[in-house]
């Protein structure tokens, strides 16, 4: 056991300071996408919805409805529309209500961009 004890001393502390301080390892984690409304059209939204294997994306009128809870950060939407979606980098996603996880992203590009900005954008 002394062997282990000494090893432990030599090893030092590895424990994260989170939540007091941010943790560096979080940078490499897969995170849900963030979208650029300016780049989203209805057609693109439909393609994204089709590409999403976990049904996290769906188009509702002129808004892309994004269920963060269902998202597995698999990155297929990023591959599908490199311009319109990027990784959000957010990993602190715990929600107290499922509704908090459902986001509406307005489709500002292409047909009928102006109108839905208000109607689709308001949560």
């Amino acid at each position: 056991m002394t062997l282990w004890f000494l090893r432990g001393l030599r090893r030092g502390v590895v424990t994260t300071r989170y939540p007091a301080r941010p943790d560096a390892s979080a940078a490499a984690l897969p995170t849900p996408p963030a979208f650029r409304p300016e780049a989203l059209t209805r057609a693109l939204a439909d393609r994204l919805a089709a590409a999403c294997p976990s049904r996290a994306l769906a188009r509702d009128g002129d808004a892309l409805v994004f269920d963060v809870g269902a998202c597995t950060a698999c990155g297929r939407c990023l591959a599908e529309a490199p311009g319109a979606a990027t990784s959000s980098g957010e990993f602190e996603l715990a929600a107290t209500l499922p509704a908090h996880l459902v986001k509406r992203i307005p489709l500002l590009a292409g047909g009928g961009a102006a109108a839905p900005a208000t109607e689709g954008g308001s949560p």
Partner: protein
Amino acid sequence: MTAVRAGAAALPGLLSQLGRDAADDARPVITVAVPAASLEDAVRRLAAHPGARLADVFAAGGGPAAGRDAAAAGPVVLRLVWGLDADRGYLITESEIEGERYPALSDIAPAAFYEECEIYEQFGIRPGGGKPLNRVALPPQAATTPGQAPPRLGRAPVEPPGDVHALHHVGGHAFEFPFGPVRQVGVESLYYGLVTSGEEVVDLYLFTWHKHRGVEWRLQGRTPREALFQVERTEGLGAVGNAWAFAVAAEAALGLEPPAPAARARAVALELERLYNHAAATAALCQSTGLVIGQAAAEIALERLLRVNAAAFGHRYLFGVVDIGGAAAGPDAAVLRRDLPGAYGELCRAADALLATNSFLDRLEATGILTQEAARRLGLVGPVARASGVATDTRVDHPGPPYAGLPPAVAAATAGDVLARFRVMLAESAESVRLIGDLLDAGAGPGRAEPVGTEPGGSQPRGETREARGGPARAGMAARSGLGWAESSRGEALAWVALDDTGRITRARLRPASVRNWRGFDDACRSQNVFTDIPIIEASFWLTVAGTSR
């Protein structure tokens, strides 16, 4: 891949030809149509063939996929997958089964028993001889309350399962120690019926149906790429192995050949998966022996390896690396070269200290012994089999790219106890690190072979695929089918895929290594152990329930 249609009589010739193909490394997969009448004879021949093992048994057809109106039921096609390790090839026998019975395979090749039970539950046909079967996937309430019966791949059994399933009755001076399904913190749900005389373990049986999610049923009607998402999440700790096997099967069916760098990228991921699994197994061994400091050391190594995964492939458990026809993500070679040695060093230091701790080794030695005979008979694979002196490793026996180029040295032991399994895991980890180095030197990166015809369905709205699930196709003698395999960290993972002409899956068979190795577990537990040894044995097998009840 060569597909041959021939009777059982032609087998000897085929086998010899197989040997020749193997010489020029053609990865031969031979498909032989064997009429049900001569199936028994064929099984005898193959079981007697040197270096042949029954790798998997599964059925297809027998009604519309996803089990809707059973009126359209066709004949069930029974497929036996033989790993001809000596000849470096696979052989599939296809037999159409009319009626409810087929020759009892497990009397000739005991390894077939678990699959016989599966086939009974899913396709309603049972082996002759009338020996009792066990419940493996479908929950008891599925049998008792017809309303709750989940859909089956084929038709429902005709005989009531009550008459078919063996009763777990404990008599005499022993009792059943119930353990689970809700067990310790952070372990999977699993029920042990632990029959003990108060001290030693008399017998042990497992109920894994608590986690059966009908994955194979879900895959039907999807395109391989959609299905891949589900396959990765069937056994998270074996994601790469299973996904690779599935991808190879789909590629065989679609006639794709992944580009070399992508194949190497997959291999890097697979070896990383092996590394972190063996680290996790080490941590679990320490936990089960109550060596908390050792557990902490192993967990430091494990966490660092997972971070290496995340840095190199973007996912701690390497989801989304394998893609049909290639690799979706490639390793960041620089990161791997920089971080992997350190992380692996942690594991080595932990292992060295463990191998110098007698209180630890004493618990491992002569615990959970699994004889070579048992490992062979039950068709076990991976580190478990290798620790019992059955040195099968598909990376060597059935080398596909990129392993054909750089074959790994197979670590093996003969003791068959927990310590032997532990040592084998450590040796494999070292080998994996070496392989990763070579693979990176050879150059590994993402890439994808585009199909000859455009692969359909890839960009269809989900709704339609829901409708299309199952489709009209019969998964009998499938037009386009393929077999895939990979040496996952737990051993040989197999997959078989049949596609209809729209490129959707009519029948997908997943056989993670866990399915095989759980069968050795009770055998190992029964050999002279008291029941405090069971957690140690379980840790040394390092299997997942998710993999076996999928």
